[in-house]
């Protein structure tokens, strides 16, 4: 993946496929600590210890259309190339927490890319899931909670182009205001 936001998209899709009703993404973008840290928590069906042991093996997947699953192997490789790492905790029936981090100023760290567009695409495609997205920088933080969005929309669907566009601009402006890395 060329952008971190695409990794986030891909890995959060795993959570949506695990029948979660709540997915939290926390990004800590700290220049002071020289760390770019991502945490994805869900309350989905979780994984057995046996499956988890194999999960970064590219020949492990729950899909039936193909035999390879590259989401986790790719992020593992990318973080390890950037003096970072990943960790995974999971319990069957309770959910899964995935964390991965990079050395912020590492030469090989991919750029963030279009995080605002990614978030909006993800939440508008999974309206039945409650997403809480938190972005923390050295200066401030920004929280995007789909329950609040739903309340503001009063029952209207998020999957409408003008709403998608508005939310995307809103997130992008807020991220810029707190000094998020682009």
């Amino acid at each position, binding site marked *: 993946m060329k952008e971190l936001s695409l990794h986030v998209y891909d890995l959060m899709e795993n959570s949506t496929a695990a029948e979660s009703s709540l997915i939290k993404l926390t990004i800590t973008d700290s220049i002071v600590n020289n760390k770019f840290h991502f945490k994805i928590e869900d309350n989905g069906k979780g994984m057995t210890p046996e499956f988890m042991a194999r999960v970064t093996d590219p020949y492990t997947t729950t899909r039936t*259309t193909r035999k390879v699953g590259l989401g986790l192997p790719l992020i593992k490789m990318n973080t390890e190339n950037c003096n970072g790492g990943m960790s995974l905790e999971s319990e069957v029936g309770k959910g899964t927490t995935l964390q991965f981090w990079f050395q912020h100023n590492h030469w090989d760290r991919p750029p963030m890319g279009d995080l605002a567009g990614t978030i909006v695409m993800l939440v508008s495609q999974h309206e039945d899931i409650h997403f809480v997205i938190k972005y923390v920088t050295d200066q401030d933080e920004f929280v995007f909670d789909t329950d609040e969005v739903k309340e503001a929309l009063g029952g209207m669907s998020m999957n*409408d182009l003008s709403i998608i566009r*508005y939310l995307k601009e809103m997130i992008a402006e807020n991220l810029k205001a707190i000094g998020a890395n682009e």
Partner: protein
Amino acid sequence: MTKVKSLADLKAMREKLQTNLDVREKAENPESLVQIKVAMATCGIAAGAKQVMEHMMQKAEELGIQAVFTQTGCMGYCHAEPTLEVRVPGKEPLVFGHVDNDRADEILTKYVQNGELVEGIIPVNYETIDK
């Protein structure tokens, strides 16, 4: 400092948006709309499916095509990503591979609007998957 957009503004816009949606909902029984499913698994995302989907949504609006966009899983055509399935009302769904922005425009203007076939069709022997 300029004011940053917030959800309160969205609330204020609601009425205006609602009228737009009403127009759409009147026409809405999904069978009468063009349905476009974008394959959005690791392979699709890595190949740029997200950006193609955004572009296509924008373009469909410009062209006034009433389309429903959804995302789907991997159909097993990882070699041809980004792929998308287009279902025009009354026709069998078609799957297009190697879709970039230009190809997406072509699919909308030629196939959806005029029924002409365009390059990049993946022959059928697949089944739609729900996820």
